[in-house]
């Protein structure tokens, strides 16, 4: 009888142990594509801070520190048998997905995550804000804006542009989208598009942004026709874009940590890949003033960086 009771306790204990999350039972392995890249490192720092506060253990593997990273990574995964793998950057995700396809995987900072091979049990935080977030903030800064124009390549950006149009319409904004097949068409397309719009939007399309010359062509043409340019990255601010809104990288790390903990307890919110929750905003006041383009002054407390003419 005593032996039966002992086995009952043992079975109960085993059941309990298999149900506890990886806070108690295992580690999180963080794979960083390149620890020398500031944004990857910042994401990793914030992620570690949050999971550590919540009692989780972690180890880190930076691909740039190993000449035979793929082989070393496989070894590390076998040795540590982590409960969850957090991949920062596309390279980290691709290698982890190959090395441990059945593990719980979480990714962030992956460019164009839609092209990744995502299996069941994989979650992520996207690298870019959703177009709806961008348009909401854009609308807040420029409430009088009615028509926005953009160039795109239909093969690369068809879906994204359709989403932009739908999101813009919800806020009463009209998008005029002009497709191009080759960067050589940019000049003519701009001549046609710019007179019809209040603002030009640079989206991350590889045909439109074929190189520095293409970007220069867009910004020069917009300046000549006195049209402000909005961009998805602050890299274009120095070249004359009036506003740039992008994802806040520290928030991506914290958001990923929350997702990791939700994966642990199987209480994951709907959707496998979340948009980043934080934004960072750069306003080129010099360019706005020279265009005499009005913006909502009350929005200034949301701006991270204001670029003036004296820099």
């Amino acid at each position, binding site marked *: 009888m005593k032996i039966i009771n002992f086995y009952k306790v043992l079975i109960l204990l085993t059941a309990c142990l298999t149900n506890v999350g990886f806070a108690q039972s295992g580690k999180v392995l963080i794979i960083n594509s390149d620890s020398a*890249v*500031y*944004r990857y490192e*910042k994401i990793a720092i914030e992620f570690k801070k949050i999971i550590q506060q919540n009692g989780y253990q972690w180890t880190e593997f930076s691909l740039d520190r190993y000449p035979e990273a793929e082989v070393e990574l496989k070894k590390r995964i076998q040795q540590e048998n982590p409960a969850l793998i957090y991949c920062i950057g596309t390279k980290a995700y691709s290698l982890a997905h190959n090395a441990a396809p059945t593990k719980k995987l979480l990714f962030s900072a992956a*460019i164009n995550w839609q092209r990744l091979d995502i299996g069941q049990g994989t979650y992520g935080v996207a*690298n870019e804000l*959703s177009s*709806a*977030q961008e348009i*909401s*903030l854009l*609308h*807040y800064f420029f*409430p009088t804006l009615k028509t926005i124009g953009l160039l795109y390549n239909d093969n690369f950006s068809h879906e994204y542009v359709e989403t932009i149009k739908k999101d813009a319409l*919800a*806020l009463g904004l009209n998008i005029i989208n002009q497709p191009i097949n080759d960067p050589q068409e940019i000049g003519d397309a701009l001549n046609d598009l710019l007179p019809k719009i209040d603002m030009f939007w640079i989206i*991350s399309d*590889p*045909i439109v*942004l*074929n*190189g*520095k010359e293409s970007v220069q062509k867009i910004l020069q043409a917009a300046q000549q026709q006195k049209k402000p340019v909005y961009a998805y*990255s*602050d*890299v274009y601010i120095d070249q004359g874009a009036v506003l740039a809104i*992008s994802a*806040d*990288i520290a*928030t991506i790390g*914290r*958001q990923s940590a*929350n997702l990791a*903990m*939700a994966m642990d*307890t199987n*209480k994951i*919110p*709907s*959707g496998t890949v*979340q*948009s980043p*929750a*934080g*934004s*960072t905003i750069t306003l080129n006041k010099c360019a706005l003033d020279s265009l005499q383009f009005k913006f909502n*002054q*009350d929005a*200034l*407390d*949301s*701006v*991270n*960086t*204001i670029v*003036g003419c004296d820099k």
Partner: protein
Amino acid sequence: MKRTLPIFFIFFVFISGGYWSAQSNVEPTVDAVDAEPTFYFYNTETNINNFATLKMGFDVYLENHGGYYLQPFDLKENFEKSIQEKGNIYLLSSWHLKELQQKKVPLEIALVATAKGDTMQRKVLSANKDIANVSMLKNTVIAAAGSEEYVHSVLKQILGKGQEALLKDIKILIVPKDLDALLAVGFGMASAAISAENGLDKLAQMNPGHFRELHTLGFSEKDYILIAATLKKPNQQETQLLKVLREMSEVEAGKANLKLLGIDGWSTLK
């Protein structure tokens, strides 16, 4: 090859974007604290990393109005270490001031900030329609701007003694600003958000659809929006600094700087 180059270009933009963000992250150290009469600034209620812009804007203005400086801080500890000598003004949140006063730091309110005619505001806990009441916040994510301890304290106050136990089952997602927190609810990254009341007004203006989807679960007590404090009663130098601060709303350049802090002016406590 033709298609690799543009993708490489976009990748470069992505990487260098992080680099520029890193460059703009100017964290002052206590060693760098100036001996000149200075306005020291730290706000527990926001995470907007706009110190370089704040410093540049205020310094240009203050240099022409008495030769003063603004020293913004990212870290609470560094800001607190700067509270040592008389002759300076400390700009901080009401919550932070109370905390310091409890630690017997002799800071006193000299001016209070005004925004749209108000000197005080409440924090609001707003949720999506699926969260009918606070008890449904268990195992959810609440987005908020501000320091972690501040957000935790506000949430505790809003939940009240009856629901305080929920705190351990709620995950807080710290975001840079109120608008990010509110949009995070609209876009499904969080179930609820804590924001200032005027944050909700901004959302209504920015995205009326999302605003309509939110409902209020609770309010915090009213608190001053921002405080200008001195160590004990203001002396002659501090009175001069406070005058400069109060007069900022009278000129365009001053107004623009105040907008960076989300305020319209300063007034004396009635």
